């Protein structure tokens, strides 16, 4: 009941000042989007490193090559998170 009252109050405030409400919603959405954008690369990096460790344990003589490709794979996957971050800063601060 209390939460419902808070929503009603927020809606009334938003109706009173739509520009402020829009800014607030944009900031909240940007933060939410950044969080979502970081989840995918996190899963991807975990998968890359897991498979690389498995490969190194199975074939230690190829460890150098596996580490090189693992590092590049991690960096490429991280680029997705960086793109999400840049969109976030442009929406939130620009």
């Amino acid at each position, binding site marked *: 009941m209390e939460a419902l009252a808070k929503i009603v109050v927020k809606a009334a405030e938003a109706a009173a000042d739509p520009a402020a409400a829009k800014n607030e919603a944009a900031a909240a959405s940007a933060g939410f989007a950044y969080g979502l954008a970081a989840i995918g690369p996190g899963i991807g*990096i975990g998968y890359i*490193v897991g498979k690389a460790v498995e490969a190194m344990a199975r074939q230690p003589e190829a460890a150098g090559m596996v580490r090189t490709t693992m590092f590049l794979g991690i960096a490429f996957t991280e680029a997705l998170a960086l793109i999400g971050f840049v969109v976030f800063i442009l929406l939130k601060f620009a």
Partner: protein
Amino acid sequence: MNEPNSLFTSQLSGDAPEVAVTRHMLLRGLVAAPVLVLIASFIWGADGAASSAFGCALVMVNFALAAALISTTARISLALMMGAVLFGYLIRLGIIFAAVVLVRNMSWISLPALGCTIIVTHLGLLFWELRHVSASLAYPGLKPTSGGEASTSS
């Protein structure tokens, strides 16, 4: 019968290839940064140039931190390396976030220039290095001979 290597005891000794890769990328970044700063100064002016330089530095520090984390932890254990990569990802994202939040209100910052530079520098350096690495893997004569070797200490 061979015992399978444990992830907790396996460690990688020898040279760290990711450090060599990062060294290449940093050298190329030093070459590419003035060009990017020049382009940003044409588009966004002096603020863009300063922001672009900051973005290049941020990306290069990010690469250096990633390589340092992997090479340091790989000498200890593979399991630690895996944990360090995953938590390092969060920590590095946090560092970039903090760096941008700290400078966002400075007079010399241009957020579009900073954002574009971060993406372009990160992807550009990676693709540049990828060409070198794929060539060295495709042509055995150019293949690096100083790869890391795995050993088990138990």
